[in-house]
C-alpha cells in the first residue's frame, strides 16, 4: 500500500551528504547533588535534500530542546555533552556565532510556535523581515523591502504592502504564523525546522499553513523537519516519521510503513489517542504499575503493555530492522506478532 504524493528522491540526492545529520546528540542538565538529567540521549537523525521528516513526541520528550540544540540556543543551563552536527557535510556547533560556517536563517531556518511572543513587539513586521534579509543576503534596504513584500505575498498575507508596517500585536495568530514562515523562507535555507508551529491554530488555519509550508518547501528543494505532538500531521505532510520518547528516538520509519504497522508500543499508544474504541485503548494504556522503586532499563517500561521482565533489567538498543526502519524495543510489534 502506498499513498505516495511526492516524487521519489533521485539517486544523486541519496548519494550526496544529508542536508542535516545529527549523530549521538546528548544534552544534559546538571542537577544539584544528583546525577545529570539527560534530556536528549544519543539522538541520531538524517534529513536528505527535499525530504520532509516528522518528529513526534509528547510534551517534555525533548522536541524543543533538539531544535534549540541545532539552533545553538540551549535554554536554562543545559549542556551539549556529546554528538556531532553536520549541514551538507559541514560540521557546525554554534549557529548564532557570526563566524559559524553554517548560518541560521540562511542555511537552517526555524519556524517558531508562538510567533506573537517571538516576534519583537516594538518592531514592525516589515522591519523584522528586512533585518534578516539584509543581514544574510546583503541586499540594500530597498531590495530587501521588495523581497520582504514578495515573501509576505507568497505566504498569502492579504495586502502585503500595508502589512509591512503592522505591529506584531495587530496580527491574528494565523497571520503571525505566516509572518514567521515568511521570515524562515526569506533567505532560501536548505532546511527549515518547524517546532510545533501550528498547534495553537484553528484546524482550518492549521491546514492552510501546513499546505503553504509544504508547497513552499516543495517549490524550493528545501528539506524540512516538522516537529509536533500531533501525529496526525506527520501522516499527511511527512516522508518519514521519527518518534521521540523521554529524549530517545524509539522508532523511525518511512511514513506509509509506519502507519500501517507501527512497531514500538509507544507509537501504538500515540495512535490509540485518536482511536475510538475505549476498550482497545485501555488494553494498551492500562498497564500494571512497576514494583515500587524499580528503575526500569527501558524508559517506556512503566507505560508499556508489552513489558517483560527483560525490559526492566536490560535497556533496548535502537536496532535496524530493514526497509529504512529502526526501533528501540526488545519485543516490537512486527509481522505476525
Amino acid at each position, binding site marked *: 500500500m502506498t499513498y505516495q504524493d511526492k516524487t521519489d528522491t533521485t539517486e544523486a540526492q541519496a548519494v550526496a551528504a544529508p542536508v542535516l545529520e545529527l549523530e549521538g546528540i546528548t544534552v544534559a542538565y546538571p542537577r544539584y547533588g544528583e546525577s545529570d538529567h539527560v534530556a536528549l540521549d544519543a539522538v541520531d537523525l538524517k534529513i536528505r535534500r527535499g525530504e520532509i521528516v516528522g518528529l513526534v513526541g*509528547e510534551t517534555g520528550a525533548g522536541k524543543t530542546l533538539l531544535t534549540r540544540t541545532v539552533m545553538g540556543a540551549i535554554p536554562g543551563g543545559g549542556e551539549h555533552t556529546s554528538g556531532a552536527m553536520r549541514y551538507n557535510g559541514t560540521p557546525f556547533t554554534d549557529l548564532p556565532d557570526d563566524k559559524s560556517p553554517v548560518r541560521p536563517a540562511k542555511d537552517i531556518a526555524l519556524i517558531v510556535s508562538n510567533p506573537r511572543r517571538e516576534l519583537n513587539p516594538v518592531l514592525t513586521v516589515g522591519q523584522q523581515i528586512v533585518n534578516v534579509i539584509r543581514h544574510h543576503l546583503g541586499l540594500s534596504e530597498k531590495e530587501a523591502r521588495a523581497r520582504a513584500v514578495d515573501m509576505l505575498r507568497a505566504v498569502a498575507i492579504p495586502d502585503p504592502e500595508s502589512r509591512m508596517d503592522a505591529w506584531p500585536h495587530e496580527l491574528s495568530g494565523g497571520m503571525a504564523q505566516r509572518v514567521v514562515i515568511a521570515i524562515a523562507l526569506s533567505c532560501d535555507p536548505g532546511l527549515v525546522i518547524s517546532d510545533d508551529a501550528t498547534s495553537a491554530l484553528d484546524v482550518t488555519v492549521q491546514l492552510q499553513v501546513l499546505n503553504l509550508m509544504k508547497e513552499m518547501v516543495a517549490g524550493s528543494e528545501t528539506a524540512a523537519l516538522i516537529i509536533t505532538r500531533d501525529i496526525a500531521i506527520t*501522516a*499527511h505532510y511527512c516522508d518519514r516519521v521519527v518518534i521521540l520518547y523521554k529524549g530517545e528516538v524509539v522508532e523511525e520509519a518511512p*511514513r506509509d510503513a509506519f*502507519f500501517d504497522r507501527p512497531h514500538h508500543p509507544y507509537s501504538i499508544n*500515540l495512535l*490509540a489517542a485518536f*482511536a475510538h474504541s475505549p476498550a*482497545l485503548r485501555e488494553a494498551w*494504556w492500562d498497564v500494571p504499575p512497576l514494583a515500587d522503586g524499580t528503575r526500569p532499563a527501558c524508559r517506556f517500561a512503566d507505560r508499556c503493555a508489552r513489558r517483560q521482565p527483560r525490559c526492566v533489567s536490560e535497556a533496548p538498543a535502537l536496532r535496524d530492522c530493514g526497509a529504512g526502519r529502526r526501533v528501540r524495543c526488545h519485543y516490537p510489534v512486527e509481522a505476525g506478532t
Partner: protein
Amino acid sequence: MTLLSVQDLVKHFPVSGSSKLVKALNGVTFEIERGETFSLVGESGSGKTTVGRAVVGLIEATSGAIVFDGKPMSWKRNIRSPELRGRIQFVFQEPGESFNPREPVAAAMIEPLKYLGMNRSDRDRRLAEVLELIRMPMATAMKLPDDLSPGMLQRAAVGRAIITRPDLVVLDEPTSALDPTARAEIVDLLISVQKKMETAYLFISHDLSTVRFLTDRICVMYLGSVMETGPAEKVFLDPRHPYSVGLMASVLLPHPSLKTPERMKLEGEIPSPLDLPPGCPLASRCPLVEPACRERMPLPEYPQPKHLVHCINHHKLERADVVSDRFETFHTLSDRILRQGLPERVA
C-alpha cells in the same frame, strides 16, 4: 426532557474608546436534554466561550433567555442562588486555573461542597467517591497542583466539577491544552462519568475528532450565529452547511490514506466580529456564496427531522451515497492497527 434551553441569546460587548460593538452572539438558540452531551464547535472567535460563560452566569446577555430546568435564569436566579447551587458546574481550558497553587488539589475539589453547607464527614465521603470515579489515588489528590501533570490536573478539575452531582457541566475546551494521549484519557473519563451520573455536558471545543465520538448532538457556530445543529452522526455523515463541511474537511486524521477532502476548503480566516454586514455570516468565505446570501440571515431549514441548517444552498451539499464519514473509517482502521500485537494478557 429539556434541561437547558438557550433562546435567541445576544451578547454585544462595547469596545472601549469607540462606539463600535463586538457582536459576539447574534441570536443563538439550542436546547440540551437531560443526560446528553451537546457540543458547540467552531473556530476561535465564533462565540462558543461566550455562550458557555453566559450559561454559568459569568456574563450577562444583552438579550435573549436562558431557561434551566423549566425556569428562566436571571440576576436573582443564577448558579449561585441557593436553589441552583451546585447544579451547574464548569471546567476551563487551562488545567491550572481552578486550583490554588499553595493548596492540595483535594482541597479545591471539595470546595463546591462547602457552599452547599455539607458537613465534614459527608464531604470526605463524597471526595472518596469522586476520586474512585476519576481513578485518582488519594495520595495524588493530596499533592500540590504544580506536582501534577496537566492531564492529571484536568482530571482533578473534572472531579471538582462533578463532586456536587450537577445536572449540567459546561466544559470549555477542556482538552485543548493537553497532549493527544492526555486528551483521550479525559474524554474516556467524561464518558464513564456520564454513564454513572447521567450528567448533561455542554462541551465546547474546536477539536472535531474529539467531539465526534463523545457527543450526542452537535451545534456548529460561526461569528456568533448557529450554522447547523443536529444529531452528531447525521451532521458528521451528511453535513449540510458549507461551514460544517469545511471545518470537518480541515481535520487531519492520523493515517495517510485518510486525506483531507478537497470539498468546500475554507480559505482565509474568521473576520472580526465588529460591525458585521447583514446576511449570512459566512458570505465572505463561502465557496457557494450568491447575491441572495448577503441580503438577510438565511432562515432555519430542516433537511431531515431534528437537523437544522441556516443556508439557502444546503440541498447542494446533500450526499445520499455516503455511508460513512472519515472519522468512522479511521475508527475501523485504528481498530485493526491496535489489534496487532495486543499484549497477551488482554488478547
